[in-house]
């Protein structure tokens, strides 16, 4: 059983100049506007389709030339933050390992 993640459509990413912002369309338990690093913005863009943690980590590792385990740890933290904001949807998929 594998868990896949996809971003919620109740949040919108806006790039204004050099700033990456995540805007909530509805009421949330955190600020209606959050700031993303460029790396987080890349992960958010990837979450437009269903993605596993491994796939996200692989993407980051390849794009930013970082250690795979470090990338996986960062993805874990970021997904947890998004979940706490209800900015993610998840599903369980059978058969992907």
């Amino acid at each position, binding site marked *: 059983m594998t868990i896949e993640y996809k971003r919620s459509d109740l949040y919108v990413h806006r790039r204004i100049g050099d700033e990456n912002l995540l805007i909530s369309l509805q009421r949330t338990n955190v600020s209606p506007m*959050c700031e*993303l*690093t460029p790396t987080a913005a890349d992960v958010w863009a990837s979450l437009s389709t269903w993605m596993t943690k491994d796939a996200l980590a692989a993407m980051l590792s390849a794009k930013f030339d970082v250690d795979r385990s470090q990338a996986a740890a960062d993805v874990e933290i970021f997904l947890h933050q998004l979940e706490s904001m209800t900015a993610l949807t998840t599903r369980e998929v059978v058969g992907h390992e």
Partner: protein
Amino acid sequence: MNDMVPLLDRRDIGDRLSMMAMAKRIPLSASVEIIATCNFKCTHCYIAPTAQRGDVMSVADAEILFDQLASAGVMTLLLTGGEVFTHKQFKEIYLAAKRRGFMVQMNSNAYMIGERLADFLAEWPPEIVSISLYGLSDARYEEVTGIPHAFGRVVRAIDLLQARGIRVGLKCPAMTNTVDELAAMKAFAADRGIRFTYDVAITPQEFGGLQPLAQQLSPSRVLELDIEMNQDDQHLSRFFTNVTDKSASDNLYRCGAGKMSLAVNVRGGVSTCVASRQTVGNLFDQPFEEVWGALGGKTSKRLAEGHPCATCKFRGVCVGCPATVEQMTGLPDGYVQNFCRMTHLRAHRAGLHETGVPRTIAEGIPAHVRVPSAAARRALPVVM
């Protein structure tokens, strides 16, 4: 990597965005007039009395506009009118704006806001609903707006919004038929924890109708109003000291217009702000960059040599601005003695001007500086 920084206080990112926007000329905020007609018939209005039935923005046109504005970097989007809630596709337009990630604000008279609309806004909250308040009774409302039994509906609307946690602002134009209730309106707002503002500059209608000017307060009445509204001397002095130029500037536009903000009317015409009806281009006909460039050209102009405002250290707090002066004279670098007198009276009260009398009273206004027409000057209160 610290991937995300939830912002509990938006002011820090807001300051950074504003600095970046001013430096790079990014239009951080925009107003969009989605309808020019209104359900009220206010005596002072400069838009709705001359609006046509067809002055309504379609959802398709709004989406085209929103895409342009989002690409350009607009963050804060003010939906305005006319009365926005009379637009039959208001919800579609509003959601189109929200889904593009704008921080949406609205101007409204609130008359149309009932439970269903309040519930809709609670589900998709705006940054703020800025409500124009026209008095504290049905009788006063009818006098100003021409609509009977309106006050009760507006109060109910305010209560519905606040009960749903939607931020509300209240404002009123300070004019002859509202001035006696402004202090009470401020108290009404304060009782609800709402900020109340008022504006003392009344301008002619789009296309020149002078009827609103009959509502303009005289400069001395404006000063009395400041006192009534508890603009205490210390507050006023602090305000003036903070914003008074240490050295005057001949920059015509001193606000963010054309640098980090713009206004779009119902036909797609672009101007500096909602107070200006003179457009520099049209976003339905021209690329955004072309129109934004034209707006920047207009707002980068300087006052001509010898213009009385070029050497005035109170320009930062002047009652008049290029948009209101433009409405009064036809040019943003005109001169309106009424506005000047109000500002100087305030400066005198703050201890920053000896007499409160602008030097133009004694020296006259240079011939090359446009002033309001003779008819407009007759429609205004005597400059006192």
